[in-house]
């Protein structure tokens, strides 16, 4: 759509600008403030320069939780994207199956995140949980509160349960926007099922899939509540992801300076990766 140039449009944006700035600018400046200073309680501050940043960037603890975070996000994307696309492709396209699938699949998305954690906790408990009990009676030695491998398995399974539907719904919306004529043309040309997927469906889903990657990346990179309730970062530090570590440092130990520096580094990493995705997405949109 060709838009007209109109500076008065700013008036429409003011309420949003004020509300978001109120929430974003002041707290963010507080974080920036802390990151350069040492606190001695009762509002006494001393300038520390970039000391906290250097400390965080060289700290093994930060490297470890950042590493865990990247591995987790990578596994999540690797499982959820193909699985989500596969489910969307096999979902019914019309009839009573559509609302049933949509409603049931959206359910996990609307459960408060700590309830998701608590639900999976009791579901996976080795003695009284269905998952834990079944795995153990099948002969696996499964205990997610003791063994880090099991903790990872449970956290990933929980996230797959919680968020795959988002990918399904996005892909389904993309598939629905394909005109039947495309499929008819493919049939006349004698295209195989794979060709239809590769040359018709995948290109048509490109936009929503970029969005899916963007959303899944952001949210899995910020994951806090679910693993906090499920494993609390344990056993040991096995599932101590970035947000968990950050909150432990800021609210648990009150190391405000290092925690603030870590927040900023954390935020910048998310921002950088999202900016790349966003640019790709917008470039694509501009071309059309």
């Amino acid at each position: 759509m060709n838009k007209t140039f109109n500076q008065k449009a700013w008036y429409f944006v003011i309420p949003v600008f004020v509300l978001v700035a109120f929430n974003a600018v002041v707290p963010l400046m507080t974080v920036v403030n802390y990151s350069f200073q040492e606190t001695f309680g009762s509002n006494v501050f001393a300038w520390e320069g970039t000391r906290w940043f250097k400390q965080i960037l060289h700290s093994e603890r930060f490297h470890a939780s950042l590493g865990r975070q990247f591995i987790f996000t990578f596994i999540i994307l690797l499982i959820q994207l193909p699985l989500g696309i596969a489910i969307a492709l096999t979902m019914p396209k019309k009839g009573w199956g559509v609302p049933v699938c949509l409603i049931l699949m959206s359910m996990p998305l609307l459960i408060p995140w700590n309830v998701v954690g608590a639900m999976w906790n009791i579901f996976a408990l080795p003695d009284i949980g269905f998952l834990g009990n079944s795995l153990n009676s099948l002969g696996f030695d499964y205990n997610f509160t003791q063994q880090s491998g099991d903790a990872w398995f449970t956290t990933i399974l929980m996230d797959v349960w919680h968020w795959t539907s988002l990918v399904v719904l996005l892909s389904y919306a993309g598939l629905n926007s394909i005109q039947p004529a495309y499929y008819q043309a493919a049939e006349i040309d004698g295209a195989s099922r794979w060709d239809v997927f590769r040359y018709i469906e995948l290109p048509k889903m490109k936009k929503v899939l970029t969005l899916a990657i963007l959303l899944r990346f952001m949210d899995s990179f910020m994951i806090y509540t679910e693993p906090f309730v499920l494993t609390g970062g344990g056993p040991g530090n096995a599932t101590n992801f970035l947000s968990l570590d950050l909150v432990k440092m800021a609210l648990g130990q009150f190391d405000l300076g290092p925690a603030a520096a870590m927040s900023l580094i954390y935020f910048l990493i998310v921002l950088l990766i999202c900016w790349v995705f966003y640019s790709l997405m917008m470039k694509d949109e501009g071309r059309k």
Partner: protein
Amino acid sequence: MKKIKWAVPTFYIIFLMLPIYWLLNMSFKSTTEIINVYSLWPQDFTLDNYKTIFTDSTWYMGYVNSIMYTVFNTIISVSAALPAAYAFSRYKFLGDKHLFFWLLTNRMAPPAVFALPFFQFYSSVNLFDTHIAIALSHCLFNIPLAVWILEGFMSAVPKELDETAYVDGYSFTKFFFKIFIPTIAAGIGITMFFCFMFSWVELLLAKTLTATIAKPIAAIMTRTSSTSGYELGLLAAAGSLTILPGAVVIYFVRNYIAKGFAMGRV
């Protein structure tokens, strides 16, 4: 081939329903039964857990609090985002692209980063432990989201609609409320659904910003589980009840939900 096709979504849905079933199963058992007897359905069916929640005000007020700030947030987010999304979808103005990306960056900010400064900030403006504080703090990620979804829906409405209305002598306000808003009603419904959803499921900020008066149900659950040594039955019942509002709103938007998740940009 037809039969195999049904298998994938069916297995997926069974996988989705299993933990939910387990939660429901536990909510109808007493805590002693949960700990001592492993069974796939309640042996000694009881409604006591639910009775406790509906008679104890510290429990049921949690639901009231959660619903209150969620509704506040939905109203604030959508009414602020409507004009802004219109501006983004219809006009170019100085800094529009930067502003749009800046808005989105707030959706990208990890809530953990904001937990502590929010606590201090809302305490210093005397809003700590109020519903409005949580509603305002959730604007941080809900307004960008609302602007994004609404902009997608509005851009799909041809500009000729606006122009015809002006030719017909409509003023801007009259056009916006009488013609434009009814045209994108579905989009507004979807946006409200998303604001409700993200405000409902968020806990970190809601927990940080409250102490007693406005405490959300999700936070009450975590507190109870730690002090009285895991009252599992009660916990399961409280958890099961938090699924209900979500299930109700999904039902209303079921036909648009897929398009909504695509942010109206399919």
